[in-house]
């Protein structure tokens, strides 16, 4: 039982990332009808927003410490971050320590701007083109974005730790009456899950309860009619693209402490997220979220030794296997019939 609870928990953070990326993908597909293969790159750029803010906050000048030697035997040059000089040692260290949560604020405008530029600068020219063209151009864009990040940040993973208070793990099992140390779960992964739930809830509330969201939903259902009512639906859809980019970016920012950001991380998630979207039902926001969590948890279960000893390699194919079964039995995916797109 404890192993099952642990794998469910373990699947939640991966499922959260899948759900957030799939949510953004579905928003873009639902509003603009574009299959955006550059969406994983937006997730990656979000993670690099955290890296960038960390680097900004740790910007330093060097002070010569004559009493210590560097690796060549010369007097040691000690890095002194400007932040600690301006705010004092303790406050400065705390600001640096909280770089990832602070990067949430930093990344929102950056990601919206990137999303809007991407949509206005490139993607709008492909609205009336076949999906194959859209896939090619957005895939190409993803590679360009990847290479830009690689050029500036290198090919190696960059450690981007969570604040010290969230390091370590939480004895979840004790809450459920298990022995101590049986079900342990890292604090930051719980934070990630809670954050994902908040963002998902926020997006749904925004679409459901605001006038802007109502118009967007109407536009998703019938773009032409909304346009005939004198509403500039194109501008709203551009804003939605920016919001979808921000959702992917936020997913990336918060994922940075879980696995050190690297330029390829978007591609690692992209294909799986598309499978999630298809399983959930193209255009269905609840479907994308549900499928994200279900597949994340299933993937986690599939990596259990007991299951792998019966079905070797199942952890590598489980998501695709489930996708095949669901699409054979429900060609429109789990919630494709009553998705937001089709209300």
């Amino acid at each position, binding site marked *: 039982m404890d192993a099952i609870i642990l794998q469910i928990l373990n699947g939640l953070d*991966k499922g959260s990332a899948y759900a957030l990326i799939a949510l953004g993908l579905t928003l873009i597909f639902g509003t603009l009808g574009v299959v955006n293969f550059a969406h994983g790159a937006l997730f990656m750029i979000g993670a690099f927003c955290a890296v960038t803010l960390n680097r900004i906050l740790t910007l330093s000048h060097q002070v010569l410490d004559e009493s210590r030697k560097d690796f060549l035997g010369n007097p040691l040059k000690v890095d002194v971050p400007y932040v600690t000089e301006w705010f004092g040692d303790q406050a400065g260290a705390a600001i640096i320590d909280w770089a990832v949560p602070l990067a949430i604020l930093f990344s929102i405008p950056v990601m919206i701007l990137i999303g809007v530029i991407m949509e206005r600068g490139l993607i709008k020219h492909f609205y009336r083109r076949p999906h194959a063209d859209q896939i090619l151009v957005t895939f190409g864009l993803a590679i360009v974005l990847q290479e830009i990040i690689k050029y500036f940040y290198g090919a190696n993973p960059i450690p981007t730790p969570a604040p010290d208070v969230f390091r370590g*793990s939480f004895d979840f099992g004790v809450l459920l009456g298990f022995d101590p140390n049986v079900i342990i779960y890292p604090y930051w992964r719980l934070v990630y899950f809670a954050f994902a739930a908040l963002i998902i809830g926020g997006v749904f509330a925004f679409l459901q309860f605001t006038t802007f969201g109502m118009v967007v939903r109407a536009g998703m259902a019938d773009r032409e009619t909304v346009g005939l009512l004198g509403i500039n639906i194109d501008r709203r859809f551009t804003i939605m693209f920016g919001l979808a980019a921000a959702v992917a970016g936020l997913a990336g920012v918060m994922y940075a402490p879980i*696995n050190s950001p690297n330029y390829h991380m978007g591609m690692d998630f992209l294909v799986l997220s598309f499978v999630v979207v298809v399983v959930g039902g193209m255009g269905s926001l609840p479907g994308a979220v549900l499928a994200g969590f279900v597949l994340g948890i299933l993937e986690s279960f599939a990596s259990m030794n007991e299951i792998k000893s019966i079905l070797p390699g199942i952890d590598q194919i489980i998501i695709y296997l489930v996708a095949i079964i669901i699409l054979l039995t429900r060609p429109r995916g789990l919630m494709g019939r009553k998705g937001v797109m089709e209300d």
Partner: protein
Amino acid sequence: MSKSTLTRRGVLRSGAVAGAGVALPTIFTSSPASAFTNEPTGDTVTLGFNVPQTGPYADEGADELRAFELAVEHLNGGGDGGMLQTFSSKVLDGTGILGKKVTYVTGDTQTKSDAARATAKSMIEKDGAVMISGGSSSGVAVAVQGLCQEAGVIFMAGLTHSNDTTGKDKKANGFRHFFNAYMSAAALAPVLSKLYGNDRRAYHLTADYTWGWTQQESIAAATEAPGWQTVENVLTPLAQTDFSSYIAPVLNSGADVLVLNHYGGNMVNSLTNAVQFGLREKQVNGKNFEIVVPLYSELMAKGAGKNIAGIVGSQNWDWKLENEKGAKYAGTNAFVKSFGEKFGFPPSQAAQTCYAQTLLYADAVTRAGSFNPCAVGEALQDFAFDGLGNGPTTYRASDHQCFKDVLVVRGAENPEDEYHLVEIIEVTPVEQVTYDAEHPMFAGGNLGSCNAGV
């Protein structure tokens, strides 16, 4: 009485035929066609440096390239000469190799065997490389070594730690300076016993390719000898980035040690995940839970950040070696000075092994007086040398493996700066890590005979 029939034309004709007859053997032996693959004919010689510039081992690849660049500079007489000054062999004089200026081409292996073979093939066929070096993944090294054997060029392996490279996949044209999984295990096991006792239950996570398999086999055998039990061995894909689903079952396995047979980016991620799950703070079977990373590097320590503190592993070399362990490891400081002044930070073990391999190749060519791979191979076999940072070292003829001391290191708890991330806790003498060439972990291969190509 004989009558002379000599005429002017007859003399000329006979002279031409006789001249051709005398010259015939020379025509065959001095044919302009190459006697071996990519025989250098101009005033330059090209070396091929094939390293991972992307993928989980990209960190190591970048440092290897820096070292190759430095080695070429020193061979051509540039810079301060680095380890040319300390190398026990004195035939290299900074005028290139056999008077030819050294040039080089580079390739990205992407940490994939097929990509690495393609780049190596291009270096040999298009760029005319007479020697290929580099690595960082044993799967890649084994594949490229096989290609070099077929093509008739020398492969001076860079970072490759699988037993198979000089075991079942050994080749006459391939030479490895780096240590291997068996040596790591032989050096580590006694230290692990001393630190953590003999009554331990170990859970292994293992990279699913040649290096991981032989690393796991070696460390399991070496730790089981004094009494450890191996609870489980789980194979993980090389492309894996999130290891949390592999770490979670460790908690309930009854194991009190986690052995991460991972390297590069894989190790950074798996160790980070293990620490996130609180394994370092856990107590199992009445003992503190421990994590072991059998193959270590400062680059990985940097990537893993604070998570590396207290973690024990092995290294081929360390930039602090000469300062901490004495003049036996001469060459270390000379190399650190050259590298540090050029690039601004100390070299990794991957850089040192690649630099040493380039010098060793150049030295062997010079001693042999030829770029012919068979002559070079002969010059390297059973070659004993010193002054390249590892102490007295020998290239064993029977498997082309270098034998030298092995370091056992531990992640620093409170590093004084970003360069002192690991502490050398023991230097295991070469005698303790030397094995018989017929050892079962290295059985099944055949060195074969050298191939000079064309």
